């Protein structure tokens, strides 16, 4: 599915400094019954966000009006668990365009890149700086510059570089996806398939 181009994102951020946030927390299995990619943001972090009677839990960060923005900053090993892309859809649908963590689970990272959410992996030290800055001032703005591959705390100017494969970077900057690429080499794929050992 095509998504909006990603170039520079400047936004406040929502802090979620919990480690090993798994995809079952990001979107519980009972919300995976849709056959279209719509409305998943409503159930992002459902069980952390709402009580059993569907009233919001006041102590969860998404229900705290002090915090907002298009950047979610999570604890280490963000997105572990299931391959459900619904987790990345929920993050995107809620309005986040970027997730920052000191470590991402593999499939979740891939899924984010495929749906237009930029996963930015920072050092544990920089993650701590971000959390501290948001804690001190929830209006703290971050700038994520995909072309330059940097993330900056705007108030202090502290910045760190992040990695992304040149191919994926190009895709996100241009709003392309892998299927566009594969369709362009279909003949080569068919020729390859005809010569496999099995």
């Amino acid at each position, binding site marked *: 599915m095509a998504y909006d181009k990603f170039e520079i994102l400047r936004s406040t951020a929502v802090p979620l400094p919990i480690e090993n946030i798994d995809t079952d927390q990001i979107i*519980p299995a009972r919300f995976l019954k849709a056959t279209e990619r719509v409305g998943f943001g409503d159930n992002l972090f459902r069980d952390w966000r709402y009580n059993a009677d569907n009233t919001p839990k006041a102590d969860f960060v998404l229900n705290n009006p002090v915090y907002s923005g298009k950047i979610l900053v999570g604890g280490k*090993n963000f997105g572990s668990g299931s*391959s459900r892309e619904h987790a990345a859809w929920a993050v995107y649908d809620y309005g986040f365009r970027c997730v920052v963590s000191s470590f991402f689970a593999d499939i979740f990272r891939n899924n984010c890149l495929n749906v237009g959410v930029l996963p930015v992996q920072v050092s544990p030290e920089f993650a701590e700086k971000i959390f501290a800055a948001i804690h001190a001032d929830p209006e703290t703005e971050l700038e994520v510059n995909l072309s330059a591959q940097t993330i900056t705390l705007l108030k202090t100017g502290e910045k760190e570089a992040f990695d992304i*494969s040149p191919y994926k970077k190009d895709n996100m900057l241009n709003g392309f996806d892998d299927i566009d690429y594969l369709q362009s080499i279909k003949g080569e794929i068919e020729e390859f398939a005809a010569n496999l050992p099995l």
Partner: protein
Amino acid sequence: MSKTLFDKVWDTHVVRKIEGGPDVLFIDRHLIHEVTSPVAFLGLKTRGISVLYPDRTFATADHNTPTINQHLPVADPLSANQLDALESNSKEYGISYWGLGHQKNGIVHVVGPEYGITQPGATIVCGDSHTSTHGAFGAIAFGIGTSEVEMVLANQCIMQPKPKKMRINVNGKLGVGVTPKDVALFIISKLTTSGATGYFVEYAGDVFENMSMEGRMTVCNLSIEMGARGGMIAPDETTINYVKGREFSPKGEAWDKALAYYKTLKTDADAVFDKELTFDGSAIEPMITYGTNPGMGMGISHDIPDAAQVEGGAATYEKSLNYMGFHEGDSMIGKPVDFVFVGSCTNGRIEDFRAFTSLVKGRHKADNVTAWLVPGSHIVESQIKEEGLLDILTEAGFSLRQPGCSACLAMNDDKVPAGKYAVSTSNRNFEGRQGPGARTMLASPLVAAAAAVTGVVTDPRTLIEELV
């Protein structure tokens, strides 16, 4: 140049390498199910493209299916809608479809191997993280997201950077009551849930060489729980004997050719791994988890460690124990158990039911326990009956449900109620995984059996009479 098993299979399937980007990897077998495929098919329709190789794709319904009264219409309209979508999409694109009620229906990672779809040296993907199961056959198998499901339907390829390689060696003789599940939970407890992120794992050593295919599938299944993309074990006589003669396995001349290929599938003696770990199999105990991720496990006779002894933040650790209602220093032995679940793509195979039955034989289900015994497929269900296991189970107060994913992820009605404790043979003990508020302790079928007959967490070794 020397290659690992992983290199050999991967390199054979690279259609094209992209400078500064991923490899274009050809996929031999694509397994699909109702949850992660509908949006992929929608994508194909939107783009106006077709499925390139429908005969390389196999569809089964498992996540959303009930495990009782499968002959009746599925009551939940959302589940029914998703199952209908899988059926109509499969028909529209010419994909073989094993829906509810079909004799071949069952958990995708159980039926794939049973019908010979899973083969050594193949690349296999599915929109489900436990696709790593199929690595037990020396295949490269891993879970993918829905965008990638669409990619494979459209072009039979995915685009992946080649992962790093790790070898995990386990040697020695496993103790009484120690099963493949314990070996896997032990490794995950040592590596944590992120310890193998970025790696593809090869399991080596005599513990795996002596393991049945069922056991190897359990181990590879859980590779994802330490963050690995997948795990694999070199094919040997055990593998070949399992694969030979199955419905989709090569036959005749094709079998001879396949066999010659299978025999090349092993790591060269001087091949180098990015990381290599070795464990002593004889030191492994029956395992149980006490927290809310599969890395939070320990030998069943130990006490829950203090936050200072575990890697990670104390606040996250405390949150986890609070959810479970446990405390640092607690013994797990004697903890209350409300539900016992045997099943899932981790432990829903015949060997798991043999193990469970061996321990409950001549005993009786504890009154406080609700037991869900859910075979992974109709073949497993038939074996349970044919081998006389069902009679023993019935005598002991247990009954059998119908095949499906069941309480592993609670997408159907098999949900553990909030606050209740489950000893579960499935793969994840995340918060709410088996139902909102459910508290899951992961363990082997033997530990599950010990809990089912005593009503509390019990070391199965105390119930095994042969133990000296």
